[in-house]
């Protein structure tokens, strides 16, 4: 399938990747090869085969609803680039 430059730009935006204009042709080429593989997989007849959500043949274990966590805010926030009054600070976002 043809992977045009607009699709590359849109995909990069959705993934929040800053993709320099000069790299777009190379990325388009790589994505096209990946999609080639996907196309091959799609060609396989899967009618009647149940969806496999996970390769492990196990069920989801459940956790009892008991509080175990103690406040570790100071430790956990230590690696944040910016924090104040117990809040993580990020560049302003307004919907």
């Amino acid at each position, binding site marked *: 399938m043809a992977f045009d430059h607009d699709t590359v730009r849109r995909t990069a935006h959705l993934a929040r990747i800053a993709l320099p204009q000069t790299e777009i042709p190379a990325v388009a080429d790589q994505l096209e090869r990946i999609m080639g593989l996907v196309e091959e997989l799609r060609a396989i007849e899967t009618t009647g085969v149940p969806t496999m*959500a*996970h390769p492990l043949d196990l*069920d*989801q274990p459940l956790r009892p609803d*008991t509080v175990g966590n103690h*406040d570790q805010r100071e430790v*956990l926030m230590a690696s944040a680039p910016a924090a104040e009054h*117990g809040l993580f600070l*990020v560049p*302003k976002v307004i919907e």
Partner: protein
Amino acid sequence: MDWEVVIGLEVHAQLNTATKIFCDCPIAFGAEPNSHTCPVCLAMPGALPVLNAAAVDKAIALGLAIGAELNRHSIFARKNYFYPDLPKGYQISQYELPIVGKGTLTVQLADGVEKVVGVTRAHLEEDAGKSLHEAFIGQSGIDLNRAGTPLLEIVSEPDMRSPAEAVAYLKKLHALVRYLDICDGNMQEGSFRCDANVSLRRPGAAYGTRAEIKNLNSFRFLEKAIEYEIVRQRDILESGGQIVQETRLYDANRDETRSMRSKEEANDYRYFPDPDLLPLVLDESRIERIRDILPELPDAKRTRFMSQYALTAYDAGVLTAGRVLADYYEQVAAGVDGKLAANWVMGDLLGALNKAGIEIEGCPVSAEKLRLLVQRIADQTISGKIAKEIFEEIFYRGGEVDAIIDGRGLRQITDVAAIAAMVDAIVTANPQQAADFRAGKDKLLGFFVGQVMKASQGKANPDQVNAILLERLQKS
């Protein structure tokens, strides 16, 4: 030619578990920002989610209550989008295989008609955190205490055909989650939130393009927003325009819906199964264990109230709208006439609560106290009129029913001789009215009853007053 409105609702019910859905952080409002976080809900690399059993059980309870298919095998998926209050860059949700499949909810409409509304699905997912935009210049503060709170998203079929039907459905669902004790139902705090999909079509035609209205945190706003949206879409369609499929926000202050401009491109959530979570398998013993502990549900309770207490469908509907109110009523009705108890709970009690802006949960008069008051009417200790006075007293100032009756000498006068003496005095004092009554002016009986009741300070038994008056006025 008329338009038909088509409405479907998506409800997010916050499950009232003790801990978050994928980690053991506590859930509590009003805690210090980020004090209820851990590597899992902060999305630290390498941290893995582990599903909370109580969230699963509460989803099963909802599924059983709406007669839904419970998927024995369901899958968690990643819903990808970027927003700072979602630290992983995706929300864990369920997509292709939700835990709860198709079910139904029967709602009672104002005209007594019942309507069955389809529920498409209900799935488990996690809530996001909160962003605070005001406090910092050029920056937003992020509090992730709410991140990872379990939500059950309940999606209806587009089965509702009027704002009133949508409100009836939402109220029924609200009552149900509280009966089941799976959600506290607090709409102001956002524990029970609703989005509405609204479209118009010519009757019988295919569905029109819909708009999704967000931010509906009360029954009234849901009704108003749909009403506004019907007019907006009708104006567009009748002037030859086309409805744009979009998300709109309801602004209660201006009573209108507005398009939400989003910088995000057309939603492309790129769902895929979450490799961190294995398929959720429900075994029969788990489902049966939940079925065994299900409480009596609103419809069953309503039917029982109608037969056990001889109530009308309407009264039984009002009294079973909430589990707390229903329990309160049953305590009042214990040992007294069910209809009399219903009149007191629905009339004086709900009226006073409404006037004072208090919910039944915070009612200042205990059910036991109201039961005693009703009992005192039934056993003729006091009249209904005196009971209203005592009710006002205990509602606003407190006190004990019997102490007030005795302390103020409010006991009803049922002594025939005493009432007869008062009747004689009144008849003697009003010879003209007595003569007129005997001459055929029957309406004057009311005058005499009023006079005797006044003379007795409302304490004479009205039935006895009536009987003795009639007897005395026929004589002589």
